[in-house]
């Protein structure tokens, strides 16, 4: 019973962060800000939903598969996010920022 309550709680938190991330995807100003909202979905939303499902199903093969999905997304989501932001930067999209503290405007790691 206690385990069920915990899994309800985790699925609830995950769904909440999923919705907040989706709202952020619509509300925020430019592509680089929206990436943060997508990060919210990829880490907290997905992580807590999967954790809740793990608690719900107990010690079964389903839990093992859910953990594999979680670990894969843990490694894959920052890679695709970084690739997207780098592609946007290479596509000459200027980030809308209040303050640019970079010493110069050259792109790191770009071959000439």
């Amino acid at each position, binding site marked *: 019973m206690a385990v069920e309550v915990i899994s309800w709680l985790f699925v609830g938190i995950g769904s909440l962060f999923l919705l907040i991330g989706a709202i952020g995807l619509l509300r925020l100003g430019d592509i680089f800000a929206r990436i943060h909202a997508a990060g919210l979905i990829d880490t907290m939303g997905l992580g807590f939903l999967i954790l809740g499902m793990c608690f719900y199903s107990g010690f079964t093969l389903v839990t093992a598969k859910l953990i594999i999905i979680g670990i894969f997304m843990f490694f894959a989501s920052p890679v695709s996010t970084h690739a997207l932001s780098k592609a946007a930067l290479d596509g000459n999209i200027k980030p809308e920022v209040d303050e640019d503290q970079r010493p110069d405007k050259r792109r790191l*790691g770009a071959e000439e």
Partner: protein
Amino acid sequence: MFRSIFLAVVLFLLWLVLSGIYTPILISFGVLSAIIVAWIAYRMDVADHEGFPIQLSWKAVSYWPWLIVEIIKSNIAVAGLILGSRENIKPILIRIPANQKTELGQVTYANSITLTPGTVSIAVGENMIDVHSLSKAAAEDLKQGVMHDKVCRLEDLNYPLPKTK
């Protein structure tokens, strides 16, 4: 060579989890496919210290819980920023040093930055990382360098302990 054998064992464990049907003939197929994949990886030279970093072992395992706590903290902060008023969102671009010795360490650091919402690494190179941050507080946190020192310690235990406030 040791790395390839270890890779075969890990692949076979993965096969066992994904399969779910345990008859002798299917298990022998699983063993065979794990060995073939490990052999191909050995021939392609991809199961090295970058592709299959087992040398990090327990150090990586002790780094993840700290990272997960950081992720949850920054998640809550970003959720507040999204739901709050637009005036609070002040994006900022900074360039921070990444003095890890190996490329694997730099990738770990850049991925950790991206994984915590509120900061995204947008370019990596020349021992530097350009970071786009959603608020000034997150950028200041990153400049303190606690995460940087932790990742440095991940690849070299002789690196000095991060200073905690």
